[in-house]
């Protein structure tokens, strides 16, 4: 296979006219709505450099325009390609879910994304909207600084790309214990097997245990002593240049 093909297979390469939605690009929904070869009208977004991006998941922001103008909320999702920010519980519309032939389905509120211009970051102590800039501290660390008060806005801890939350990791699981409430499931919570150690995983205690005993022998010499191997032959002297 071509080397370039192998390298691009590791990272998902999106076609140039790809239209991003609220779902990740490798999900079923994205693949349904963006079949290969589809060309849609281009969506124009205000260009924002990647290292100039200021809003992250877990930030508190205030909505400036729209139905819920003036309210503050937590950011649950960020789509940089379209300058989108989804705030929990704000800018919602209602839609039907699990509608079948017999059952009319339930109404649930689903959030619509907000553009960066409709959003403003909030000062952590004041809890008022401020303009934010990227600056460097005395130590050389890059931080977000509120322009009005000069306070630092810490970037909230970002979740891992593979969606694993180490705090929720069960570790060794002997199969006992309930499977939890099936109704309120989000991904890994519904299946405990998805967040336990497998047969090839070292447990946390064994991985962090310090069993190294320093010695002047090399690794091979120690194994020879342990197994009682005696080697009296020596390699013939050879020269290389």
């Amino acid at each position: 296979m071509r080397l370039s093909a192998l390298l691009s297979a590791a990272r998902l390469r999106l076609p140039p006219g790809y239209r991003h939605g609220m779902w990740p690009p490798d999900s079923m929904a994205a693949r349904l709505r963006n079949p290969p070869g589809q060309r849609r009208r281009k969506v124009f977004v205000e260009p924002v450099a990647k290292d100039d991006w200021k809003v992250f998941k877990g930030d508190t922001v205030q909505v400036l325009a729209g139905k819920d103008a003036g309210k503050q909320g937590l950011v649950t999702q960020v789509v940089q390609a379209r300058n989108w920010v989804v705030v929990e519980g704000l800018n919602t519309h209602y839609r039907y879910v699990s509608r079948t032939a017999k059952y009319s389905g339930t109404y649930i509120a689903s959030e619509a994304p907000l553009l960066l211009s409709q959003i403003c970051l909030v000062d952590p102590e004041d809890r008022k909207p401020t303009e934010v800039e990227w600056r460097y501290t005395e130590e050389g660390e890059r931080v977000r600084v509120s322009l009005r008060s000069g306070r630092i806005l810490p970037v909230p801890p970002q979740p891992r790309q593979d969606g694993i939350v180490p705090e929720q990791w069960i570790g060794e699981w002997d199969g006992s214990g309930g499977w939890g409430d099936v109704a309120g499931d989000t991904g890994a919570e519904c299946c405990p097997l998805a967040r336990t150690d497998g047969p090839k995983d070292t447990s946390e205690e064994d991985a962090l245990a310090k069993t190294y005993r320093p010695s002047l022998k090399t690794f091979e010499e120690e194994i020879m002593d342990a197994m009682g191997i005696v080697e009296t032959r020596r390699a013939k002297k050879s020269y290389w240049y």
Partner: protein
Amino acid sequence: MGLLTQLVRGLVRGADRVSPFTSKRGPRSHNKGRGAKKLGVLTRNKKFLLVKEMVPEFVVPDLTGFKLRPYVSYRAAEGSEPPVTAKQLFDELVAPRIEKDVKDGTFDPNNLEKYGFEPTQEGKLFQLFPKNYVR
């Protein structure tokens, strides 16, 4: 397919010239090795004599009760310890013994072999320099 896509496909058509021509490609008569070393000597009668010393043999100690496995649980914190330096080894193993001997008065600067000093690497199976073992 649009006009532009067809033009681009015309530019990249053809056999793969860039990737290496390995033994997995070509007709059945194309016989090629992948660089394995010969483990013996070919005699004048075209018979191959295997030299047992050239055949690699894995020496693995008994791993019953061994707790470490290929992967690590996600709960373990990230990070690693810095590699052990020669100075650390000396400070932990050799320095206390030398100090004890100096206090007792039995320190002999001509007899450093008892602390592990090796004046020459000749005659050793695993020489430190030039390094003749893999790990």
